[in-house]
């Protein structure tokens, strides 16, 4: 690889997502998927996403089974900083604006 390509590699180095990105992903997952998955399925999915995002794209299905078996739902809750209330308020406001006549 020549110098220009090396510069290109440095220019395209991995970028970390913004702060609390994982929180927003999980919150969106809960909002969209809750009705389809049910409560238990949501937490399995949420734990898996955290494992992916925290570990950098690796998922351990054994770990998920252990978490489920060990009733780690409360531990997952503590680990998340979910802005669910704020998100709901924004959505309500947007819906109110959309429902107003022109």
């Amino acid at each position: 690889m020549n110098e220009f390509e090396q510069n290109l590699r440095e220019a395209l180095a991995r970028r970390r997502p913004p702060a609390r990105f994982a929180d927003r992903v999980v919150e969106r997952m809960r909002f969209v998927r809750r009705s389809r998955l049910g409560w238990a399925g949501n937490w399995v999915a949420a734990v898996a996403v955290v494992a992916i995002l925290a570990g950098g794209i690796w998922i351990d299905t054994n770990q998920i089974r252990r978490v489920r078996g060990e009733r780690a739902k409360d531990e997952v809750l503590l680990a998340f900083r979910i802005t669910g209330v704020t998100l709901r308020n924004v959505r309500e406001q947007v819906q109110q604006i959309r429902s107003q006549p022109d």
Partner: protein
Amino acid sequence: MVYSIAYYFFQDMTTAEEIAQEVFLQLYPSRPMPQTRAHLKRWLRRTATHRSIDILRRRGRRLEVQMDVLPEIPVGHHEHDPLLNQRLGRMVGSLSENQRAVIILRYGEDLDVREIGDILEMPAPTVWSHLRRGLAMLRDKFSACVTEEEHERVRTESS
């Protein structure tokens, strides 16, 4: 990885986060979870890249390289210069969608031509073609940028 691919496609944090969220939302629960790290990596890269290309086509425009937005690059100090690399990263956003994808996957994700072809569903010769053309365009833009700044420096010093 997912965010990174989307970011270099659009050079925009908001768009990159939207795409990254959509990719993770697609992962669960409607499909079987990838059982190995390699499968998951491949799936994430593939989905992020295709999603980015889809959105780029829908927007129907290329990212304009706004050279005056970036800070001045000190002339004569190019090796491993972060400002230079920042500008080079933005230049990638001026490439066509396929060239952009190939360049990002090759130099950002360190994939070989076969792996890139697998993700983009392209034969290897096509990947090579996009890679060569993309590199040639970037070199031309980069050279023009550095040359212009050198001329400016000479003018400034001589005045």
